[in-house]
């Protein structure tokens, strides 16, 4: 059975309300956008487990479309992850990145990138350059999409990696980093 769509548009519904009055059942299904318009607010602080399961459920329509993807490392599907709550192997993070990223961001209070300890073996100069290249790409995309909060986080990450890349303007740092460390394929 397909999940219900929003009563006002074709987006999948994430808010569902079923009421019984005088024996008559009425249902309301709203997408995130229309739920917000209708003044339905999501509770902001919830236990992580609850948050995760709700989030996974609310995205089940999109997830289902993508759940055919199978992790090359372990054969895991996103659907199976949804049931168990555990990923199958390290490659799952890459395979399901698109679906996992918003989920992790919400569970981790908005954090999108690791800022802690790095294993010595992972901190080699090649990896570092690759990382910087990747960050610069992401920063350019974020600035282009006017995602300033994300751009600021990316900039912080770049600054942590290489203090010499810190400029002043919002786009400057990214460009400086890319030209000094590793050319992007733009």
């Amino acid at each position: 059975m397909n999940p219900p769509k929003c009563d006002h548009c074709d987006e999948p519904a994430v808010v569902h309300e079923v009421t019984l009055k005088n024996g008559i059942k009425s249902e309301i299904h709203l997408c995130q956008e229309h739920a917000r318009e209708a003044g339905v607010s999501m509770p902001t602080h919830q236990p992580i487990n609850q948050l995760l399961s709700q989030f996974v459920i609310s995205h089940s329509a999109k997830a289902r479309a993508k759940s055919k993807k199978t992790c090359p490392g372990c054969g895991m599907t996103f659907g199976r992850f949804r049931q168990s709550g555990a990923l199958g192997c390290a490659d799952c993070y890459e395979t399901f990145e698109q679906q996992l990223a918003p989920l992790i961001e919400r569970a981790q209070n908005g954090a999108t990138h690791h800022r802690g300890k790095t294993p010595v073996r992972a901190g080699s100069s090649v990896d570092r350059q690759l990382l910087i290249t990747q960050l610069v790409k992401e920063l350019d995309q974020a600035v282009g999409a006017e995602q300033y909060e994300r751009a600021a986080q990316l900039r912080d990450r770049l600054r942590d990696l290489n203090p010499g890349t810190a400029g002043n303007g919002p786009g400057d740092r990214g460009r400086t980093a890319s030209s000094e460390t590793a050319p992007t394929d733009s």
Partner: protein
Amino acid sequence: MKFSTPGPWLSDDGPDTDVVMSCRVRLARNIAGFPFVGRANDAQRREILRIAQQVVLSLDLADGMFWVDLSHSPARDRQLLMERHLISRHLAEAEFPRAVAVSGDETLSIMVNEEDHLRMQVLGPGIGLSDLMDRINEVDDAIESRLDFAFSQRWGYLTACPTNVGAGIRLSVMMHLPGLKLTGEIDRLRRAAKDLHLAVRGYYGEGSESAGDFYQVSNQITLGRSEQDLLAEFRDRILPQIIEYEQHARQMLVERNPTLLDDRINRAVGILRSAHLLGAEEAMKLLSRVRLGIRLKRLHGIDLNKVNHLLLQVQSAHLQQSIGADLNPDQRREARAKLVREALS
């Protein structure tokens, strides 16, 4: 399996042991190239065990490091390790190849094939989290010099459950909160904890109930912050608030309801000194009240360390180990009551 001393983390020598009994820092790590434990087959799990055993025992991580193959250990030994907080309930009860390495002084334990390949933890009395952080980092660095861990530049250390990804770190403290419990404020703490991104769990961590007003409080954020940042916030901002909250509740009880307080404390002593059947949960609850009485100086003549020791000794596996026999539940209640009566008489 026999431990001759109470867990060193159960002493009152650490800082701030009034409210914080003990603390723990745990890191979750996975060995690159293997599926996570839940997705691995038994042959892969055995291979992970073999690698971990070889690395852990060949490194000079701690004095008297010993290895326990949990798949071949009696249930009572596994419960004993769990009661000493050296393994999780999940690891004690699982049914596939798994093990734990424990240091001679029991302050370090490395669980193998828990939810992640390696879950290494250091335990200490009181609130000495900073020292524990240094210690676990040494252990992590030493193991990492021999093993490649699953790591991504974006997500950090990759863990089976994405809620642990990033630093893979769990800072936790075992708190004694009888004041908040008696004043009914514990629910407010639980609500506040959600806002602070903390988990408040029972005595044995995830999935367990609180016993004797002991609660395990830990961080939930593991991504986007350095380990030192997480530690500083937990130690300097969050914990002092909870400690103050508990101390305030205790003070309120002393000032506003001393009769109720003395009743609860002395009633607990009365039951512990005269009961002939005693369940583990009841014993924990009553010992908690006695601990509160000693801490508030409303009870005299009972040694605090003895009470702390009893908190461990009344638990089922410890009780049976001290008797040297397997007991049924009725026999345990009787033996427990006898142990407590004699200790407190």
